[in-house]
């Protein structure tokens, strides 16, 4: 009786409150960004905010459903859920619908559903299941490759549907691998590739090579205990140079023109003032409008529904990927900092809970959830305020859209369910 009475209170209410705050505040901003003319009713289904309110309502049905299932269900059915999600992704090639050049939606009547949003929690579940298997050893290359394969299947399928942004989300599982015992050297490789790529693009091949030489010399002389051989170091250097050259070739010949432009804008590679001016009008238009909207908000913002650039719809896609610029304009520095802090709090709370899990399955899954939220938040917000090249992925719980909202809700609440069950997992 005692346990039955307190069953409901075992859910982590802090996470749930954070979730409710984000969804609620997100909806206010969607209202502001999407309303046309007078707001007659909040349930006006011809307007995006009306639709989104319905999505939010349905979210609670989902939540009840998720929480009422047995926690064991998710572990047991992880593989099946994963396979179903992958089939849904494959099915897009046959039944999918093209929107903005990406083939990522199923059309059902007037509704559209984006299966890639649901593939995230499926992948996280599958990964958790695989990695918590007693026979899996994350230090063995074979198992590492299998784990990577679980991630690569949806990532490649989504890339083939021309949705490069969503593919990028799957790199976040690196944090999960690392937590579960991936060797230190991979972290070094990951950081090196990022640094080398930026160096090669921004400052050229020679700079990248010179920096590699210097770093390798330092490493060679200071690692006395486990000094690598000279030949090893030279091979490593050649690999670095080859990689830098590869990055340049990749940038020039593999990336699509709009992707090149985004990176060029981010690293300020274009020096020709005429082309730069043209870029500002075309590629960078969205970015400039978004930065201006945020900047015009000032310390306190212009007030709810009072943003002149939001009302004038100066920022395209403002209710979806660029929703954060509405926060910036109407709620100012205080409001947008609050949002940043809410997201940090949510992610840190999930991390904290994940670390306190007794089952490895729950912990891995929790880490996956935190990683996915983290990468979405970082890429989306960073892009809107001009710190990261333009990548079209939504801001969890804020951006307009049913698939996204439901995908993130399922992702989060499965973890809340797992967490509530930890007392039983001795």
């Amino acid at each position, binding site marked *: 009786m005692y346990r039955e009475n307190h069953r409901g209170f075992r859910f982590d209410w802090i996470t749930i409150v954070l979730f409710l705050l984000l969804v609620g505040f997100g909806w206010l901003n969607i209202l502001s960004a999407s309303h046309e003319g007078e707001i007659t009713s909040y349930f006006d289904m011809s307007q995006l905010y009306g639709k989104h309110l319905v999505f939010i309502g349905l979210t609670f049905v989902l939540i009840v459903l998720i929480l009422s299932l047995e926690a064991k269900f998710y572990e047991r059915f992880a593989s099946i859920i994963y396979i179903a999600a992958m089939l849904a992704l494959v099915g897009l090639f046959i039944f999918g619908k093209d929107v903005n050049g990406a083939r990522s939606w199923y059309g059902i009547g007037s509704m559209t559903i984006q299966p890639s949003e649901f593939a995230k929690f499926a992948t996280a579940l599958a990964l958790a299941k695989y990695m918590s298997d007693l026979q899996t050893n994350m230090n063995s290359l074979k198992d590492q490759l299998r784990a990577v394969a679980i991630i690569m299947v949806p990532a490649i399928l989504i890339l083939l549907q021309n949705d490069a942004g969503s593919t990028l989300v799957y790199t976040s599982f690196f944090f999960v691998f690392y937590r579960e015992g991936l060797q230190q050297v991979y*972290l070094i490789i990951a950081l090196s590739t990022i640094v080398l790529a930026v160096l090669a693009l921004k400052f050229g091949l020679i700079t990248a090579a010179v920096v590699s030489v210097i770093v390798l010399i330092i490493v060679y002389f200071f690692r006395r205990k486990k000094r690598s051989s000279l030949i090893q170091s030279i091979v490593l250097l050649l690999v670095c140079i080859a990689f830098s050259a590869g990055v340049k070739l990749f940038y020039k010949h593999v990336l699509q023109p709009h992707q090149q432009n985004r990176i060029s804008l981010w690293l300020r590679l274009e020096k020709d003032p005429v082309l730069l001016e043209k870029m500002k009008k075309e590629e960078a238009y969205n970015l400039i409008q978004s930065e201006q909207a945020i900047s*015009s908000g000032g*310390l306190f913002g212009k007030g709810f529904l009072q943003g002149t*650039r939001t*009302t004038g719809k100066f920022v395209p896609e403002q209710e979806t990927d660029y929703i954060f610029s509405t926060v910036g304009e109407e709620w100012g*520095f205080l409001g947008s900092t609050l949002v940043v802090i809410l997201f940090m709090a949510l992610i840190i709370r999930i991390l904290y809970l994940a670390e306190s899990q007794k089952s490895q399955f729950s912990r891995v899954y929790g880490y996956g959830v935190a990683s996915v939220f983290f990468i979405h938040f970082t890429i989306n917000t*960073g892009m809107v*305020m001009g710190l990261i090249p333009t990548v079209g992925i939504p801001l969890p719980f804020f951006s307009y859209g049913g698939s996204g909202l439901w995908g993130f809700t399922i992702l989060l609440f499965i973890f809340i369910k797992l967490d509530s069950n930890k007392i039983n997992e001795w």
Partner: protein
Amino acid sequence: MRKLLLLLTVVTVGLVFIARLFYLQVYNKQAYNLFEDSAIKKVYDYPKRGYVYDRNGKLLVANQPSYDVMVIPREVEPLDTLEFCRLLKISKDDFKKTYNRAKNYSPRLPSVFVPQLSKTDYAVLQEKMRKFKGFYIQKRFLRDYRTSIGANVLGDIGEVNQRIIERQPYYKMGDLIGKQGVELSYENILRGVKGIKFIQKDRFNKNIGPYKEGRYDTLPQPGKDIKITIDSDLQQYGELLMTNKRGGIVAIDPSNGEILALVSAPSYNPNILVGRGRSKNFTQLFRDSIAKPLFDRGLQAQYPPGSPFKVINALIGLQEGVINTGDKVTCRMGYYYGSRKLTGCHHHKSPVDMNNGIAQSCNAYFVNAYRKIVDKYDDAGNAMNTWAKHAKSFGLGNYLGYDLPVGQKGRIPDGDYYDRAYGDNRWGSTYIVSNAIGQGEVEATPIQLANMAAAIGNRGYYYTPHIIKDIEGETIDTKYTTPKYTTIDKRHFEPVIQGMFDVYNKGTAATLRIPGIDICGKTGTAENFIKIDSVKTQLTDHSIFVAFAPKDNPKIAIAVFVENGYWGSRFAGRMASLMIEKYIKGEITRTDMEHWILTHSLENEYAKPYSGEPFKINGETTLQVVDKVVADKVEKLENDDLSNSIRINANQPNQK
């Protein structure tokens, strides 16, 4: 460590984002300004510009509507250019050229496409305008001058330039502002305050309703009408008299400092600076470096005042107690210092006392008086400072403080001036005797001379000359209603005024008497030089006349200045007398004098320095006689034949 990686990354990213937000929203941000928000369209409602009336209530300047065709290039949609060009009466090439220019200026902001349509073109175009997306008609108010006179006084309005916009944010691109004359001096009163509407735009530049329900919108406040002190009949008469001459006439009412007439010749019809021709005509006026029609000779021309300045020396001498009215000076056709002749003189009876000294304009008398003033103290510098203080109390040697935008200081040299020129105390009265007769270093503008005459006529005070008489619902500046006193005692004026009166009775202007009016005046003749091919060449003397009338309680004080008119009473004296008669009687009885002025021209004189040939001056010249100028055919630079008029004046063949 493994547990911490993601946690630390999250915290780092969060802090970086907050820092970035701080940079964007707090550090890098100027205070939010509604006017600079490109999401808010500002629509201005221009008020009516105030009217200008003359002192008798005659309307001089009103408004007329004008219609500009404007274009916003990025809103333009494909159109029937052929029809559009036909309606606007422009060629297809013009269309392309203007369109590209507008696009280069800004695809987003409105540019003037065709300025100032005629009313009929506007009527036809207006009905079809909706077919041409991106084009619209902007109504503005231009000035409508109901007169052809007083261009230098009335001034004009024109579009603001970038510098004005930067200094005075009230003005926006395309706004009109006073450029010269009272339009400039009283800009803030005449223009009113424009109203403004803030309209929320979307990114397609479409209006989506008033910003915050029009909370910040304002209504226009109409400009106020003003009444100026000019008597338009007198002004018109002055401009008529000045036809074919160059120079200035300034008439002031001594009892209150109101400027009755301010003539500058040559002038132009103010209407040529309105409408489509403005820029072309203005350039032509501006570039005319010979006749200088934009140069207000009444206010800006600085000349040696010549003999009228002698009366100032007489007053200073009396005030300083160095001369008496009865003292007589012998004139031997000049003033001799030892055996050296310092200055010449013309033929008159000798010896002279002060009365005759003024009446006959005897140089020797005034050099004598002036030397006594300068030699009163052991230190000439000290004495000159005292002298300069007296002279400056008549409004000479500095800006008068009138309410027109242009002017010159003139020059009254003092002791320091000569200390700088010659070295400390290395000069004496004999060095600077030219000042005694208004030559030398002394310089004055016609309005300063008129004001000086007013101060003498008032026996020792003057009101700052001004052009404003009345402002609708406001009072004029008190500085125009407070008298300024000279440093000369009232009792010293009577003998000097008597001398000026005798200029008309028995002196240099005896032939210019007007029956029934007691005029006090003083003739002046000033030598002048120009450089021709870097050779200093003397030209015919300037003709100067200063007067006030009647002798007691004067109603008008006047200074007339005619370039190269030879001696004082020849042109300037006649004109001054006629102006006085016109103002006091309202009609002309000395028609002989009027006829002489209207039939004589100085254009041949002005053409000489540019002829490239050697020429004669002063007594050796013959005067050019022309057909009598008729009042309603006053030669003005009219809109259509501007290109001809000044040139014709300058190049008319010499006639006898």
